[in-house]
């Protein structure tokens, strides 16, 4: 046998191996690109089985940062996205990548940091003032730095404070990591950070070096409306790419915003944390609870 044929003969073997790795395509799989906060908090695990049963569907959850989730939606690699960065959601729809944005739920952001609060942010009246106090004291601040919804929010608060944080400054630490990693970093190194309350509550036991310093013990006690954190769901525009499960995505949006699902969202976490991690916010919910 001519030796040069050996690699050529190997190609069919490779293709067979690749085919063997293929999963048989299952009908009605909905791909949901969402943020780590909805997945890691356990919310989706708690509510999605009802949808999967009711609509004979399977939901594949890809949990990434909001920036990446939006990117996945723009490329047509998800059928629906559930994210939290209002201005970017509106742009996603305005640019034709998404059909329409629907309110789903909200929670809030808090500022956490070393319990002795060296920058004294506990005494300030707004999130912008709190960040300004951190900058003034040059106390360590850990930024997500990963283009996530939380990072987007953080930047908007710095802007409101009239401060442009610069990673060149030793106190501003841009980590480029997820919420969990950033909280752990802050706990270990005595830094302040902005966190969504849900992720902080769910990991609080592993974060001995942190306390809530601004934002109160529940969303009702949060003094600054700027820390409000709304989540929106957007079905991806099926005209841009082939293969998008448009009908199922629409059903998912209707189901997610329905009164029954909304009540399940509002109950999630109450038994474990004494307060919900997410508050229902859809139109049908508000109609039923004016």
């Amino acid at each position, binding site marked *: *046998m*001519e*030796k*040069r044929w*050996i*690699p050529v*003969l*190997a*190609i069919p*073997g*490779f293709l067979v*191996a*690749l085919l*063997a*790795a*293929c*999963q048989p*395509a299952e009908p009605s799989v909905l*791909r949901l690109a969402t943020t*780590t906060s909805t997945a*890691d908090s*356990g919310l989706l*695990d708690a509510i999605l089985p009802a949808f999967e049963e009711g609509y004979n569907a399977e939901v*594949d*959850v*890809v*949990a*990434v940062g909001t920036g990446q989730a939006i990117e996945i939606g*723009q*490329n*047509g*690699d998800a059928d629906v996205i559930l994210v939290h960065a209002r201005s970017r959601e509106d742009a996603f729809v305005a640019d034709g990548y998404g059909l329409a944005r629907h309110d789903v739920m909200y929670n809030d952001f808090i500022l956490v940091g070393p319990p002795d609060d060296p920058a004294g942010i506990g005494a300030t009246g707004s999130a912008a003032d709190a960040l300004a106090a951190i900058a003034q004291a040059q106390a360590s601040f850990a930024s997500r730095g990963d283009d996530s919804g939380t990072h987007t929010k953080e930047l908007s608060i710095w802007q409101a404070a009239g401060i442009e944080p610069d990673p060149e400054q030793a106190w501003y630490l841009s980590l480029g990591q*997820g*919420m*969990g*990693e950033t*909280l*752990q970093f802050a706990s270990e190194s005595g830094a302040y950070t902005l966190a969504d309350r849900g992720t902080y509550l*769910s*990991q609080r*036991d*592993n*974060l001995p070096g942190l306390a809530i310093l601004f934002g109160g013990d529940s969303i009702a006690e949060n003094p600054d409306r700027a820390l409000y954190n709304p989540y929106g769901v957007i079905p991806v525009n099926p005209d841009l*790419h*082939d*293969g*998008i499960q448009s009908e199922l995505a629409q059903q998912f949006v209707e189901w997610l915003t329905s009164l029954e699902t909304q009540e399940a969202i509002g109950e999630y976490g109450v038994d474990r944390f004494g307060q919900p991690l997410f508050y229902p916010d859809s139109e049908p919910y508000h109609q039923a609870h004016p």
Partner: protein
Amino acid sequence: MVSQVEGSALWEIIALTIRVTGTALAASAVLGIPTGAFLAFTRFPGRRLLVALVYTGMGLPPVVVGLVVYLLLSRSGPLGELGWLFTPTAMTLAQTIIALPLVIGLTMTSLEAVDPQLRLQLRSMGADRRQEVTALLSEARAGVVAAVVAGFGGIISEVGAAMLVGGNIAGRTRVLSTAIVLETRMGEFQFALVLGALLLSLAFLVNILLLRLQHRIPYWPGR
């Protein structure tokens, strides 16, 4: 925080890890050993450049491979119609690309290290090309198995590409390495460590199997 990985889900994760990495390893061995042999035994213009490219490929950052595979398989990419993104197939493809240069490069060097006298002897004994290559592969089998071991090591614990092109979807594309990242992200350090120990045990078992293979392959196959 309740761990995201429990009971039967753990077995699914282990099974998928074995399936994806096993398939990728088989594919890279089937493709890489003959290619490595071809590069070792043939002289042609541009060969040195090709060898340099293979050696460079041995250092490919997995996340870059993942990114390229991601862009290829995305619905807005050239192979989007296959619908492979966020499936085990995409992970297998990425891992094959990561392991392939390792298998090719190490196979090639181990064959080149075989005593050149042996080739002359084989020819003088009237061996044809196929018999010659088979005999040389057998002579260098320790190095060839080491090439496969290196390929395996490069992908079993790999997380950048698996996360990117697989999406770490529970019950579908979650493997041990991506589950470890997830648990770490959620602050479940202890469980992440348990998963890490499982991953290491799995790697240990596979390496034991491969090493046995190293000794089992008969010295002169076909004789």
